[in-house]
Protein backbone atom coordinates (compact mmCIF):
# COMPACT_ATOMS: atom_id res chain seq x y z
CA UNK A 1 0.00 0.00 0.00
CA UNK A 2 1.39 3.36 -1.01
CA UNK A 3 -0.70 6.44 -0.20
CA UNK A 4 0.37 9.53 -2.15
CA UNK A 5 -0.76 12.70 -3.86
CA UNK A 6 -0.69 13.14 -7.60
CA UNK A 7 -2.10 15.54 -10.19
CA UNK A 8 -1.35 19.21 -10.69
CA UNK A 9 -0.45 21.74 -8.01
CA UNK A 10 -3.91 23.30 -8.18
CA UNK A 11 -5.71 19.97 -8.30
CA UNK A 12 -3.87 17.61 -5.96
CA UNK A 13 -5.53 14.20 -5.75
CA UNK A 14 -5.09 11.66 -2.99
CA UNK A 15 -4.63 8.10 -4.14
CA UNK A 16 -3.59 4.72 -2.84
CA UNK A 17 -1.52 2.48 -5.04
CA UNK A 18 -1.58 -1.26 -4.38
CA UNK A 19 1.10 -3.08 -6.35
CA UNK A 20 0.33 -6.44 -7.90
CA UNK A 21 1.65 -9.30 -5.84
CA UNK A 22 4.95 -10.66 -7.05
CA UNK A 23 4.82 -13.53 -9.47
CA UNK A 24 1.90 -12.17 -11.48
CA UNK A 25 2.32 -12.61 -15.22
CA UNK A 26 2.38 -9.47 -17.36
CA UNK A 27 1.53 -5.94 -16.31
CA UNK A 28 -2.12 -5.34 -15.65
CA UNK A 29 -3.52 -2.24 -14.01
CA UNK A 30 -6.88 -1.02 -12.72
CA UNK A 31 -8.26 2.31 -11.53
CA UNK A 32 -11.11 2.26 -9.02
CA UNK A 33 -13.66 5.08 -9.09
CA UNK A 34 -15.47 5.75 -5.82
CA UNK A 35 -19.11 6.70 -5.43
CA UNK A 36 -20.01 10.11 -4.04
CA UNK A 37 -21.35 11.58 -0.80
CA UNK A 38 -22.48 9.28 1.96
CA UNK A 39 -22.17 6.36 -0.44
CA UNK A 40 -18.43 7.10 -0.65
CA UNK A 41 -18.05 6.83 3.12
CA UNK A 42 -20.02 3.63 3.45
CA UNK A 43 -18.44 1.92 0.42
CA UNK A 44 -14.83 2.80 1.27
CA UNK A 45 -14.21 -0.49 3.04
CA UNK A 46 -15.61 -2.53 0.14
CA UNK A 47 -13.55 -0.62 -2.42
CA UNK A 48 -10.40 -1.20 -0.41
CA UNK A 49 -11.12 -4.92 -0.28
CA UNK A 50 -11.72 -4.94 -4.03
CA UNK A 51 -8.33 -3.27 -4.58
CA UNK A 52 -6.57 -5.76 -2.30
CA UNK A 53 -8.12 -8.75 -4.05
CA UNK A 54 -7.29 -7.34 -7.46
CA UNK A 55 -3.67 -6.91 -6.42
CA UNK A 56 -3.58 -10.52 -5.27
CA UNK A 57 -5.01 -11.47 -8.68
CA UNK A 58 -2.13 -9.68 -10.38
CA UNK A 59 -3.47 -6.16 -10.91
CA UNK A 60 -1.69 -2.97 -9.96
CA UNK A 61 -4.52 -0.83 -8.61
CA UNK A 62 -5.01 2.86 -7.92
CA UNK A 63 -8.04 4.16 -6.06
CA UNK A 64 -8.30 7.87 -5.49
CA UNK A 65 -10.46 10.71 -4.26
CA UNK A 66 -11.92 13.13 -6.80
CA UNK A 67 -11.21 16.84 -6.42
CA UNK A 68 -13.30 18.24 -3.56
CA UNK A 69 -13.83 14.81 -1.96
CA UNK A 70 -12.04 12.66 0.61
CA UNK A 71 -8.44 13.65 1.22
CA UNK A 72 -8.01 15.39 -2.13
CA UNK A 73 -7.70 19.14 -2.44
CA UNK A 74 -10.65 21.44 -2.97
CA UNK A 75 -14.18 21.89 -1.76
CA UNK A 76 -17.18 19.98 -3.04
CA UNK A 77 -18.95 23.14 -4.17
CA UNK A 78 -16.11 23.79 -6.65
CA UNK A 79 -16.34 20.30 -8.19
CA UNK A 80 -18.08 19.29 -11.39
CA UNK A 81 -18.45 16.02 -13.25
CA UNK A 82 -16.23 17.11 -16.15
CA UNK A 83 -13.47 17.81 -13.63
CA UNK A 84 -13.92 14.39 -12.04
CA UNK A 85 -13.66 12.76 -15.46
CA UNK A 86 -10.39 14.65 -15.93
CA UNK A 87 -9.33 13.29 -12.53
CA UNK A 88 -10.07 9.73 -13.70
CA UNK A 89 -7.98 10.35 -16.81
CA UNK A 90 -5.18 11.69 -14.60
CA UNK A 91 -5.39 8.54 -12.48
CA UNK A 92 -5.20 6.36 -15.61
CA UNK A 93 -2.13 8.28 -16.78
CA UNK A 94 -0.58 8.00 -13.30
CA UNK A 95 -0.90 4.24 -13.01
CA UNK A 96 0.27 3.72 -16.59
CA UNK A 97 3.29 5.86 -15.79
CA UNK A 98 4.03 4.00 -12.55
CA UNK A 99 3.53 0.49 -13.89
CA UNK A 100 4.18 0.75 -17.60
CA UNK A 101 0.84 -0.88 -18.32
CA UNK A 102 -0.40 -0.17 -21.83
CA UNK A 103 -4.09 -0.53 -20.98
CA UNK A 104 -6.09 -0.04 -17.81
CA UNK A 105 -9.27 -1.58 -16.43
CA UNK A 106 -11.69 0.98 -15.06
CA UNK A 107 -13.99 -0.05 -12.21
CA UNK A 108 -16.63 2.30 -10.89
CA UNK A 109 -19.28 2.15 -8.21
CA UNK A 110 -22.54 4.16 -8.38
CA UNK A 111 -21.75 7.71 -9.58
CA UNK A 112 -18.14 6.59 -9.99
CA UNK A 113 -19.34 3.95 -12.45
CA UNK A 114 -21.20 6.49 -14.50
CA UNK A 115 -18.21 8.84 -14.60
CA UNK A 116 -15.96 5.91 -15.52
CA UNK A 117 -18.28 4.98 -18.41
CA UNK A 118 -18.08 8.53 -19.76
CA UNK A 119 -14.28 8.37 -19.69
CA UNK A 120 -14.16 4.90 -21.25
CA UNK A 121 -16.47 5.97 -24.07
CA UNK A 122 -13.89 8.47 -25.33
CA UNK A 123 -11.49 7.54 -28.09
CA UNK A 124 -7.93 6.73 -26.91
CA UNK A 125 -9.06 6.53 -23.30
CA UNK A 126 -6.51 3.80 -22.59
CA UNK A 127 -9.28 1.67 -21.06
CA UNK A 128 -9.54 -1.96 -22.16
CA UNK A 129 -12.11 -3.16 -19.61
CA UNK A 130 -14.94 -1.38 -17.87
CA UNK A 131 -16.75 -2.65 -14.78
CA UNK A 132 -19.87 -0.80 -13.68
CA UNK A 133 -21.08 -1.69 -10.19
CA UNK A 134 -24.68 -0.56 -9.68
CA UNK A 135 -24.18 2.57 -11.80
CA UNK A 136 -26.36 5.67 -11.60
CA UNK A 137 -28.57 5.44 -14.66
CA UNK A 138 -30.86 8.42 -15.01
CA UNK A 139 -30.74 10.65 -11.91
CA UNK A 140 -32.55 13.51 -13.72
CA UNK A 141 -35.67 14.46 -11.84
CA UNK A 142 -34.38 13.07 -8.54
CA UNK A 143 -32.21 16.14 -8.15
CA UNK A 144 -33.33 19.65 -7.24
CA UNK A 145 -33.38 22.22 -10.00
CA UNK A 146 -30.90 25.08 -9.75
CA UNK A 147 -30.87 28.24 -11.78
CA UNK A 148 -27.23 27.78 -12.68
CA UNK A 149 -26.18 31.27 -11.68
CA UNK A 150 -22.58 31.69 -10.50
CA UNK A 151 -22.39 30.97 -6.81
CA UNK A 152 -25.64 29.04 -6.86
CA UNK A 153 -25.16 26.21 -4.35
CA UNK A 154 -27.50 23.53 -3.01
CA UNK A 155 -26.88 21.25 -0.05
CA UNK A 156 -27.14 17.56 -0.93
CA UNK A 157 -26.33 14.70 1.44
CA UNK A 158 -24.77 17.30 3.71
CA UNK A 159 -22.46 18.71 1.04
CA UNK A 160 -22.62 22.03 -0.77
CA UNK A 161 -22.95 21.21 -4.45
CA UNK A 162 -22.43 23.81 -7.16
CA UNK A 163 -24.72 24.45 -10.09
CA UNK A 164 -22.24 22.97 -12.58
CA UNK A 165 -22.13 19.62 -10.80
CA UNK A 166 -25.90 19.57 -10.43
CA UNK A 167 -26.34 20.33 -14.12
CA UNK A 168 -23.84 17.61 -15.10
CA UNK A 169 -25.45 14.94 -12.92
CA UNK A 170 -28.99 15.81 -13.98
CA UNK A 171 -27.93 15.31 -17.60
CA UNK A 172 -26.59 11.79 -17.04
CA UNK A 173 -28.04 9.22 -19.42
CA UNK A 174 -26.03 6.05 -18.91
CA UNK A 175 -27.70 3.98 -21.66
CA UNK A 176 -26.73 6.69 -24.16
CA UNK A 177 -23.18 6.75 -22.81
CA UNK A 178 -22.85 2.99 -23.11
CA UNK A 179 -24.19 3.07 -26.67
CA UNK A 180 -21.13 5.15 -27.59
CA UNK A 181 -18.65 2.57 -26.32
CA UNK A 182 -16.92 1.00 -29.30
CA UNK A 183 -16.06 -2.34 -27.68
CA UNK A 184 -19.06 -3.48 -25.62
CA UNK A 185 -17.50 -6.89 -24.96
CA UNK A 186 -15.10 -5.13 -22.64
CA UNK A 187 -17.95 -3.95 -20.42
CA UNK A 188 -19.46 -5.81 -17.48
CA UNK A 189 -22.27 -4.47 -15.33
CA UNK A 190 -23.07 -5.83 -11.87
CA UNK A 191 -26.38 -4.97 -10.26
CA UNK A 192 -27.52 -6.17 -6.81
CA UNK A 193 -30.81 -7.99 -7.17
CA UNK A 194 -32.36 -5.77 -4.51
CA UNK A 195 -31.53 -2.67 -6.54
CA UNK A 196 -32.96 -3.93 -9.84
CA UNK A 197 -35.47 -1.61 -11.49
CA UNK A 198 -37.28 -1.60 -14.85
CA UNK A 199 -34.80 1.06 -15.99
CA UNK A 200 -32.00 -1.49 -15.92
CA UNK A 201 -33.54 -3.17 -18.96
CA UNK A 202 -32.47 -0.12 -20.97
CA UNK A 203 -28.81 -0.81 -20.18
CA UNK A 204 -28.69 -3.70 -22.59
CA UNK A 205 -31.23 -2.58 -25.14
CA UNK A 206 -28.99 -3.73 -27.99
CA UNK A 207 -28.19 -7.08 -26.41
CA UNK A 208 -24.47 -6.33 -26.57
CA UNK A 209 -23.65 -5.71 -22.91
CA UNK A 210 -23.22 -8.28 -20.19
CA UNK A 211 -25.35 -7.46 -17.16
CA UNK A 212 -25.19 -9.66 -14.06
CA UNK A 213 -27.75 -9.44 -11.31
CA UNK A 214 -26.17 -10.60 -8.07
CA UNK A 215 -27.70 -11.42 -4.73
CA UNK A 216 -25.48 -9.17 -2.65
CA UNK A 217 -25.49 -6.43 -0.04
CA UNK A 218 -25.25 -2.78 -1.04
CA UNK A 219 -22.29 -1.49 0.99
CA UNK A 220 -22.93 2.13 -0.01
CA UNK A 221 -26.18 2.22 1.94
CA UNK A 222 -26.03 3.05 5.64
CA UNK A 223 -27.64 0.27 7.58
CA UNK A 224 -27.06 -0.46 11.23
CA UNK A 225 -27.45 -4.16 10.56
CA UNK A 226 -25.07 -4.40 7.60
CA UNK A 227 -22.76 -1.41 8.12
CA UNK A 228 -19.14 -2.29 7.45
CA UNK A 229 -19.92 -5.55 5.72
CA UNK A 230 -18.09 -6.36 2.50
CA UNK A 231 -20.19 -7.72 -0.41
CA UNK A 232 -17.76 -10.47 -1.12
CA UNK A 233 -19.81 -12.12 -3.88
CA UNK A 234 -19.71 -9.05 -6.13
CA UNK A 235 -16.03 -8.50 -5.43
CA UNK A 236 -15.29 -12.11 -6.24
CA UNK A 237 -17.18 -11.89 -9.53
CA UNK A 238 -15.45 -8.66 -10.57
CA UNK A 239 -12.00 -10.12 -9.88
CA UNK A 240 -12.97 -13.36 -11.61
CA UNK A 241 -14.15 -11.55 -14.73
CA UNK A 242 -11.02 -9.41 -14.96
CA UNK A 243 -8.59 -12.25 -14.22
Amino acid sequence: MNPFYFGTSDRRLFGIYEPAVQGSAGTRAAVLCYPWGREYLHAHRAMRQLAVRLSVAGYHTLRFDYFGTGDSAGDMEDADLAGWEADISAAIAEIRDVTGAAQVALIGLRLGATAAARVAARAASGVNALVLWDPILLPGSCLPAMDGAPGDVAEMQGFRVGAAMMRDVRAIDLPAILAAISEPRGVRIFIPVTDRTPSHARLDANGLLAVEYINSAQPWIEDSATGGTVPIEVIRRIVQWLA
Partner: protein
Amino acid sequence: MSRKIAERAVLLGPRQSLCGILTRPAGPAAGDAPAIVILNTGIIHRVGPHRLFVLLSRALARTGLTVLRFDFSGIGDSDTRLDGLSPLDSCLADIRDALDWLEAECTPSRVILVGLCSGADHAVLYGYTDPRVAGLVLMDPSIPATALFYVQYIGQRMARLRNWVSFIRGRSGIVRLWLEHTAAAVWPGWKARTLTLQNMRTHPDLERIYQQSVARGLQILAVFTAESTRQTYREQIIDAFPNVAFRDQLTIELIAGSDHLFSTDAHRCHLVDVVTVWLAQLGLTTAPAPSRAEVVAPP
Protein backbone atom coordinates in the same frame (compact mmCIF):
# COMPACT_ATOMS: atom_id res chain seq x y z
CA MET B 1 0.78 33.99 9.05
CA SER B 2 0.57 32.06 5.80
CA ARG B 3 -2.89 31.13 4.64
CA LYS B 4 -1.53 28.29 2.57
CA ILE B 5 -1.16 24.80 3.94
CA ALA B 6 0.55 21.61 2.79
CA GLU B 7 -0.71 18.05 3.05
CA ARG B 8 1.15 14.80 2.62
CA ALA B 9 0.19 11.18 2.96
CA VAL B 10 2.11 9.25 5.61
CA LEU B 11 2.50 5.68 6.80
CA LEU B 12 3.35 5.35 10.46
CA GLY B 13 3.63 2.87 13.29
CA PRO B 14 6.29 0.17 13.79
CA ARG B 15 5.08 -1.72 10.70
CA GLN B 16 4.24 1.39 8.67
CA SER B 17 0.73 0.00 8.74
CA LEU B 18 -1.21 3.09 9.80
CA CYS B 19 -2.30 5.45 7.03
CA GLY B 20 -2.66 9.15 7.74
CA ILE B 21 -2.56 12.66 6.35
CA LEU B 22 -0.30 15.29 7.87
CA THR B 23 -1.55 18.84 7.36
CA ARG B 24 0.80 21.72 8.17
CA PRO B 25 1.19 25.41 7.46
CA ALA B 26 3.06 25.84 4.18
CA GLY B 27 5.54 28.10 5.93
CA PRO B 28 7.42 27.31 9.12
CA ALA B 29 5.22 26.09 11.97
CA ALA B 30 5.10 28.09 15.17
CA GLY B 31 7.91 26.97 17.44
CA ASP B 32 5.90 26.15 20.54
CA ALA B 33 2.73 25.07 18.79
CA PRO B 34 0.98 21.85 19.82
CA ALA B 35 0.01 19.24 17.30
CA ILE B 36 -3.56 18.06 16.80
CA VAL B 37 -4.36 14.37 16.35
CA ILE B 38 -7.82 13.49 15.03
CA LEU B 39 -9.18 10.01 15.73
CA ASN B 40 -11.65 7.89 13.75
CA THR B 41 -15.38 8.01 14.40
CA GLY B 42 -16.59 4.42 14.48
CA ILE B 43 -15.69 2.72 11.21
CA ILE B 44 -15.70 5.94 9.19
CA HIS B 45 -12.22 6.49 7.76
CA ARG B 46 -10.09 9.48 8.62
CA VAL B 47 -11.91 12.05 6.46
CA GLY B 48 -14.74 11.90 9.00
CA PRO B 49 -18.49 12.19 8.49
CA HIS B 50 -19.23 14.64 5.68
CA ARG B 51 -15.48 15.29 5.42
CA LEU B 52 -15.59 17.03 8.80
CA PHE B 53 -12.01 16.14 9.73
CA VAL B 54 -10.61 17.35 6.40
CA LEU B 55 -12.28 20.71 6.98
CA LEU B 56 -11.08 20.85 10.57
CA SER B 57 -7.51 19.78 9.71
CA ARG B 58 -7.14 22.43 7.04
CA ALA B 59 -8.70 25.17 9.14
CA LEU B 60 -6.43 24.44 12.11
CA ALA B 61 -3.36 24.24 9.88
CA ARG B 62 -4.20 27.73 8.66
CA THR B 63 -3.85 28.93 12.22
CA GLY B 64 -0.32 27.54 12.33
CA LEU B 65 -0.93 24.11 13.83
CA THR B 66 0.25 20.72 12.66
CA VAL B 67 -2.62 18.24 12.30
CA LEU B 68 -2.52 14.48 11.85
CA ARG B 69 -5.61 12.49 10.97
CA PHE B 70 -5.08 8.77 10.65
CA ASP B 71 -6.92 5.48 10.57
CA PHE B 72 -6.86 2.99 13.41
CA SER B 73 -5.70 -0.51 12.56
CA GLY B 74 -8.34 -2.29 10.49
CA ILE B 75 -10.23 0.94 9.77
CA GLY B 76 -10.07 2.88 6.51
CA ASP B 77 -6.73 2.34 4.80
CA SER B 78 -4.75 1.02 7.78
CA ASP B 79 -3.82 -2.63 8.00
CA THR B 80 -4.92 -4.78 10.91
CA ARG B 81 -2.53 -5.38 13.80
CA LEU B 82 -0.86 -8.75 14.16
CA ASP B 83 -0.44 -8.75 17.94
CA GLY B 84 -3.91 -9.98 18.89
CA LEU B 85 -4.88 -6.94 20.95
CA SER B 86 -8.57 -6.38 21.72
CA PRO B 87 -10.24 -3.71 19.56
CA LEU B 88 -10.02 -1.10 22.32
CA ASP B 89 -6.44 -1.87 23.28
CA SER B 90 -5.54 -1.84 19.59
CA CYS B 91 -6.93 1.69 19.22
CA LEU B 92 -5.06 2.91 22.30
CA ALA B 93 -1.81 1.35 21.04
CA ASP B 94 -2.36 3.02 17.66
CA ILE B 95 -2.71 6.42 19.32
CA ARG B 96 0.60 5.88 21.10
CA ASP B 97 2.22 4.87 17.80
CA ALA B 98 0.83 8.01 16.14
CA LEU B 99 2.17 10.25 18.92
CA ASP B 100 5.57 8.54 18.79
CA TRP B 101 5.69 9.22 15.05
CA LEU B 102 4.59 12.83 15.48
CA GLU B 103 7.20 13.39 18.18
CA ALA B 104 9.96 12.09 15.91
CA GLU B 105 8.69 13.84 12.80
CA CYS B 106 7.45 17.23 14.00
CA THR B 107 8.66 17.61 17.63
CA PRO B 108 5.46 19.26 18.83
CA SER B 109 5.50 20.76 22.32
CA ARG B 110 2.34 18.84 23.22
CA VAL B 111 -0.63 17.15 21.63
CA ILE B 112 -4.38 17.77 21.58
CA LEU B 113 -6.54 14.71 20.84
CA VAL B 114 -9.77 15.27 18.90
CA GLY B 115 -12.57 12.74 18.56
CA LEU B 116 -16.25 12.41 17.79
CA CYS B 117 -18.41 9.70 19.40
CA SER B 118 -16.19 6.60 19.79
CA GLY B 119 -13.22 8.82 18.87
CA ALA B 120 -14.02 11.03 21.86
CA ASP B 121 -14.16 7.96 24.08
CA HIS B 122 -10.78 6.81 22.79
CA ALA B 123 -9.35 10.28 23.44
CA VAL B 124 -10.62 10.22 27.04
CA LEU B 125 -9.33 6.72 27.69
CA TYR B 126 -5.89 7.49 26.27
CA GLY B 127 -5.30 11.14 27.13
CA TYR B 128 -4.58 10.87 30.84
CA THR B 129 -2.09 8.03 30.30
CA ASP B 130 0.39 9.99 28.15
CA PRO B 131 2.15 13.14 29.43
CA ARG B 132 2.45 14.44 25.86
CA VAL B 133 -1.31 14.99 25.74
CA ALA B 134 -2.28 18.47 26.93
CA GLY B 135 -5.90 18.64 25.89
CA LEU B 136 -8.96 16.87 24.57
CA VAL B 137 -11.64 17.97 22.14
CA LEU B 138 -14.56 15.64 22.79
CA MET B 139 -17.56 15.71 20.47
CA ASP B 140 -20.53 13.80 21.88
CA PRO B 141 -18.46 11.65 24.25
CA SER B 142 -20.13 8.95 26.34
CA ILE B 143 -21.65 10.62 29.39
CA PRO B 144 -23.42 8.53 32.03
CA ALA B 145 -27.11 9.11 32.47
CA THR B 146 -28.26 11.36 35.29
CA ALA B 147 -31.68 11.72 36.90
CA LEU B 148 -32.39 14.81 34.82
CA PHE B 149 -31.28 12.93 31.69
CA TYR B 150 -33.86 10.21 32.31
CA VAL B 151 -36.60 12.74 32.94
CA GLN B 152 -35.84 14.64 29.75
CA TYR B 153 -35.08 11.55 27.65
CA ILE B 154 -38.27 9.79 28.61
CA GLY B 155 -40.27 12.98 28.30
CA GLN B 156 -39.00 13.59 24.77
CA ARG B 157 -39.75 10.06 23.68
CA MET B 158 -43.17 9.84 25.26
CA ALA B 159 -44.17 12.67 22.96
CA ARG B 160 -43.39 10.59 19.88
CA LEU B 161 -45.79 7.96 18.55
CA ARG B 162 -43.03 5.82 17.03
CA ASN B 163 -41.43 5.40 20.44
CA TRP B 164 -44.68 3.99 21.80
CA VAL B 165 -44.72 1.55 18.91
CA SER B 166 -41.12 0.50 19.70
CA PHE B 167 -42.02 0.09 23.37
CA ILE B 168 -44.97 -2.13 22.57
CA ARG B 169 -42.81 -4.20 20.23
CA GLY B 170 -40.12 -4.62 22.89
CA ARG B 171 -37.55 -2.60 20.95
CA SER B 172 -37.29 0.31 23.33
CA GLY B 173 -33.72 1.49 23.90
CA ILE B 174 -34.52 2.90 27.32
CA VAL B 175 -35.96 -0.46 28.43
CA ARG B 176 -32.84 -2.25 27.23
CA LEU B 177 -30.70 0.30 29.08
CA TRP B 178 -32.72 -0.22 32.26
CA LEU B 179 -32.41 -4.00 31.91
CA GLU B 180 -28.62 -3.67 31.50
CA HIS B 181 -28.35 -1.57 34.64
CA THR B 182 -30.56 -3.99 36.54
CA ALA B 183 -28.50 -6.96 35.38
CA ALA B 184 -25.30 -5.24 36.49
CA ALA B 185 -26.82 -4.44 39.89
CA VAL B 186 -28.09 -7.92 40.73
CA TRP B 187 -25.36 -9.94 39.01
CA PRO B 188 -21.85 -8.53 39.42
CA GLY B 189 -20.45 -11.23 37.14
CA TRP B 190 -22.42 -9.72 34.27
CA LYS B 191 -19.57 -7.35 33.57
CA ALA B 192 -17.22 -8.62 30.86
CA ARG B 193 -13.66 -9.39 31.94
CA THR B 194 -11.89 -7.77 29.03
CA LEU B 195 -11.55 -4.04 28.73
CA THR B 196 -14.21 -2.83 26.33
CA LEU B 197 -15.73 0.53 25.60
CA GLN B 198 -19.04 -0.73 26.90
CA ASN B 199 -17.46 -1.47 30.25
CA MET B 200 -15.68 1.85 30.35
CA ARG B 201 -18.99 3.62 29.99
CA THR B 202 -19.75 2.53 33.51
CA HIS B 203 -19.91 5.47 35.77
CA PRO B 204 -17.10 4.81 38.29
CA ASP B 205 -14.52 4.01 35.63
CA LEU B 206 -15.24 7.12 33.63
CA GLU B 207 -15.33 9.33 36.71
CA ARG B 208 -11.92 8.04 37.79
CA ILE B 209 -10.50 8.71 34.33
CA TYR B 210 -11.87 12.25 34.23
CA GLN B 211 -10.47 12.82 37.73
CA GLN B 212 -7.03 11.75 36.60
CA SER B 213 -7.30 13.78 33.42
CA VAL B 214 -8.07 16.93 35.40
CA ALA B 215 -5.36 16.14 37.95
CA ARG B 216 -2.90 15.85 35.10
CA GLY B 217 -3.86 19.34 33.94
CA LEU B 218 -5.62 18.41 30.71
CA GLN B 219 -7.80 21.09 29.16
CA ILE B 220 -11.08 19.69 27.88
CA LEU B 221 -13.47 21.06 25.28
CA ALA B 222 -16.71 19.07 25.32
CA VAL B 223 -18.98 19.74 22.35
CA PHE B 224 -22.46 18.33 22.34
CA THR B 225 -24.96 18.17 19.51
CA ALA B 226 -28.66 18.55 19.90
CA GLU B 227 -29.41 15.08 18.61
CA SER B 228 -27.01 13.14 20.78
CA THR B 229 -28.77 10.22 22.39
CA ARG B 230 -26.25 10.20 25.22
CA GLN B 231 -27.03 13.51 26.84
CA THR B 232 -30.03 15.76 26.89
CA TYR B 233 -28.71 18.92 28.52
CA ARG B 234 -25.56 21.01 28.48
CA GLU B 235 -24.30 20.44 32.00
CA GLN B 236 -24.88 16.68 32.09
CA ILE B 237 -21.13 16.03 32.03
CA ILE B 238 -20.78 18.03 35.26
CA ASP B 239 -23.77 16.42 36.98
CA ALA B 240 -22.62 12.94 35.93
CA PHE B 241 -19.23 13.37 37.56
CA PRO B 242 -19.83 15.21 40.85
CA ASN B 243 -16.46 14.12 42.20
CA VAL B 244 -14.48 15.67 39.37
CA ALA B 245 -13.30 19.23 40.04
CA PHE B 246 -13.32 20.42 36.43
CA ARG B 247 -13.16 24.12 37.39
CA ASP B 248 -11.68 26.12 34.47
CA GLN B 249 -10.28 23.03 32.75
CA LEU B 250 -13.62 22.22 31.13
CA THR B 251 -15.33 24.22 28.40
CA ILE B 252 -18.78 23.06 27.29
CA GLU B 253 -20.34 23.99 23.97
CA LEU B 254 -23.74 22.96 22.65
CA ILE B 255 -24.25 23.21 18.90
CA ALA B 256 -27.99 23.64 18.69
CA GLY B 257 -29.72 22.06 15.75
CA SER B 258 -26.78 19.90 14.71
CA ASP B 259 -27.16 16.18 14.39
CA HIS B 260 -24.58 13.76 15.77
CA LEU B 261 -22.56 13.69 12.52
CA PHE B 262 -22.57 17.44 11.80
CA SER B 263 -24.46 16.78 8.60
CA THR B 264 -24.83 20.38 7.45
CA ASP B 265 -22.09 22.67 6.23
CA ALA B 266 -23.18 25.40 8.63
CA HIS B 267 -22.82 23.13 11.66
CA ARG B 268 -19.42 21.90 10.52
CA CYS B 269 -18.21 25.49 10.13
CA HIS B 270 -19.67 26.28 13.55
CA LEU B 271 -17.71 23.41 15.05
CA VAL B 272 -14.48 24.63 13.43
CA ASP B 273 -15.10 28.06 14.91
CA VAL B 274 -15.73 26.58 18.37
CA VAL B 275 -12.50 24.57 18.30
CA THR B 276 -10.33 27.39 16.99
CA VAL B 277 -11.71 29.89 19.47
CA TRP B 278 -11.05 27.43 22.31
CA LEU B 279 -7.48 26.86 21.13
CA ALA B 280 -6.96 30.62 20.84
CA GLN B 281 -8.31 31.19 24.35
CA LEU B 282 -5.76 28.68 25.62
CA GLY B 283 -3.06 30.63 23.81
CA LEU B 284 -2.32 27.73 21.50
CA THR B 285 -3.07 29.58 18.26
CA THR B 286 -2.87 33.22 17.35
CA ALA B 287 -4.99 33.48 14.24
CA PRO B 288 -8.70 33.02 13.67
CA ALA B 289 -9.34 30.15 11.30
CA PRO B 290 -11.43 30.59 8.18
CA SER B 291 -13.11 27.25 7.61
CA ARG B 292 -11.73 26.78 4.14
CA ALA B 293 -8.08 26.69 3.18
CA GLU B 294 -5.96 26.63 0.06
CA VAL B 295 -3.86 23.47 -0.13
CA VAL B 296 -0.47 23.46 -1.80
CA ALA B 297 2.08 20.73 -2.40
CA PRO B 298 4.49 20.23 0.50
CA PRO B 299 7.97 21.71 -0.05
